[in-house]
């Protein structure tokens, strides 16, 4: 098959699948949080409120996209689509099965991290162009947080890369199928790397307890304060998309991706991703948030030195266990 055609088909499929999963993950989160808070969650549209995302989408599309009079129009308009594009772009290299992968890059992890760190730029664009003090404070926090947490995220992701000896995500999974999941084997670096990866990636995706850029009790809605209609919808969608991709990447890097008995690989991959996703929701709906400076000190005092130690220990394990690799 023509590689361009193949790429196009995969792009369409990945985009649609991820957007659909994301839309219904919003339903899932609302239902989940509802049950946590002894409420029912959405019930009106469809059985168990399953059509709620559709209705939400229609509502957001119908609403006027207001541009504040003093806003930087160009930046204000392109920022929300850009966040979604970047979040979807990261989805391209995530393998959902032995052959189900849009682009099996040799440098998958690098690509993922690079694109992930780019997401700060549209956030800053939206915050700055809104010409709103709350949005700007939120954007400032987002950039500070994004830049800081990039480092522990990279360090934690390096551990599976070192252990597997490859930057390709599917190679990492194949290595885990052969030698055991990195979260459990080798004991130590892999598991702790997961423990570091999760908060760092939560901070990248601006989820509680690291959601200070849009801390709605302080900054109204942070960067999305001035956005209405689909502009807000896209920013909202990108956040969920980002979280979903993070869960998928975490399950690939630390939980063996599509590896699992009895069922086809795709099932296992989806199961692991949604399990981690639900775990992130659980954290979100049970914790209060940090203050921005505390967030920074957690990153620079604990996560960065700890990450360096983890990378070193992974290197040592590879060196001694496999006789110099």
């Amino acid at each position, binding site marked *: 098959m023509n590689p361009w055609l193949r790429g196009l088909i995969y792009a369409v499929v990945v985009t649609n699948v991820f957007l659909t999963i994301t839309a219904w993950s919003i339903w899932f989160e609302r239902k989940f949080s509802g049950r946590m808070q002894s409420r029912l969650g959405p019930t009106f549209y469809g059985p168990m409120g399953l059509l709620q995302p559709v209705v939400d989408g229609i509502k957001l599309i119908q609403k006027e996209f207001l541009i504040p009079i003093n806003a930087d129009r160009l930046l204000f308009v392109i920022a929300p689509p850009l966040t979604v594009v970047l979040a979807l772009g990261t989805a391209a290299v995530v393998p959902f099965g032995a052959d189900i992968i849009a682009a099996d890059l040799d440098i998958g992890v690098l690509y993922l991290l690079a694109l992930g760190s780019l997401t700060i730029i549209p956030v800053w664009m939206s915050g700055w162009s809104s010409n709103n003090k709350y949005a700007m404070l939120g954007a400032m926090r987002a950039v500070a947080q994004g830049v800081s947490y990039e480092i522990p995220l990279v360090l934690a992701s390096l551990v599976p890369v070192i252990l597997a000896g490859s930057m390709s995500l599917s190679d990492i999974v194949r290595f885990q199928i052969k030698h055991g999941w990195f979260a459990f084997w080798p004991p130590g670096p892999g598991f702790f790397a997961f423990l570091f990866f999760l908060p760092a990636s939560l901070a990248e995706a601006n989820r509680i307890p690291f959601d200070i850029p849009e801390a709605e009790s302080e900054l*109204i809605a942070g960067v999305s304060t001035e956005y209405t209609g689909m502009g807000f919808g896209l920013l909202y969608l990108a956040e969920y998309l980002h979280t979903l991709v993070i869960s998928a990447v975490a399950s690939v890097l630390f939980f063996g991706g599509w590896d699992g008995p009895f069922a086809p690989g795709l099932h296992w991959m989806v199961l692991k991703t949604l399990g981690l996703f639900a775990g992130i929701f659980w954290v979100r709906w049970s914790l209060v948030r940090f*203050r921005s400076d505390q967030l920074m000190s957690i990153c620079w005092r604990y996560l960065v030195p700890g990450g360096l130690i983890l990378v070193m220990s992974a290197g040592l394990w590879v060196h001694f266990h496999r006789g110099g690799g």
Partner: protein
Amino acid sequence: MEMIPHVAKARRRANPYLDLGSYDPEADLMVLNLGPQHPSTHGVFRLKLYLDGEIIVKVVPFVGYLHRGVEKLCEKLTMVQLIPIFDKNDYVSPMMNEQSLVMAFEALLGIEVPRRARYVRTLLAELQRIASHLLWLGAFAMDLGGALGGGSTLFMYCFRERELILDVFEDLTGCRFHYNTHMIGGNRHDVPAGWATKVHAAINAIETRLPEYETFLITNDIYIERTRGVGVVDGQLSMDLGITGPVLRAGGVDHDLRRDAPYHCYDEIEVRVATATAGDCEARAAVRMAEIRESIRLVRELIDNIPEGPLGARKPIKTPLAEKATQGHAYAAVESPRGELGIYVIGGGDNKGASPYRLKIRAPSLHVLGCLPYILPGHSVSDAVAVLGSVDPIMGEVDR
């Protein structure tokens, strides 16, 4: 984690009259209007914050966005008509408002309240305190954790528990919120049959769930990081500004009207006053949690021992002009969940003396807000929200 520098600096008292001219006009000092429409200003409070980056340099609080002219209204309506109006002042603890008002009128008119009515009033006051503090806990969690996060989970739980007390009140008065159950000289609604069982059930449910909430919020590490050493209101500052209630007690001053100037039947029961010394957000929260427990204990003590006897000093009043005072003045104060809620009234106003000549509400929340310019400088915007949540202002009573 030890104290970060700017929080440690904030322990020194800031000067609220700081002249901003001393700042370099070229420097990036940003003015941020926190409120009046803001998710965490508890209504329509406005804080004008001068920010250096995210650190607050100067604070100017503005009140009055919810001004409804209640004190002026008091000069036009008659005393009997005023009681339901006062439910709307501190809309989180309406019982306290009614009680302070009728106590002032009773003092003005020289009416002795029967013992049974005083017991019922004490009971209602303590139940109301539990409900009010539960609402505070939920709102505080929401300020710290956001409406779309862990904070709202605790908020929902607290509202569920508060609902139990509102149900109990509904059984007694027929209303869930604006009760109008107090009359000059007694209470309007007698305790219905089987009410004590319901109260016991509600109190037990709340008590069994309190440890859960403490695990959820009060003992959580993130919560401690956010509140310890933040917004210190020491006892001296509290006394200088006339702050009362949990904020004063959290600063180490052992003062509670229920024990120090007993009203109702507080002279017949022992109130164990909870205090703390740190004066920060954590201490204020700890004092309030202890007060919930103490109120639960008091309710248990009171509910089975309501004495027999009449519920009012006279027959229920039918007409607005029934109570008249041509002269005199009186002050009565109750310990509301927010502090000393006092009513000063001068008799002999309109309607041939059936209206007060002048009525002044001493609202504890207003005094508490006065501390913000002193304690907020040096903190960040996030801390401002946490401090505002921890002092628990109710704008309905601040602005009247």
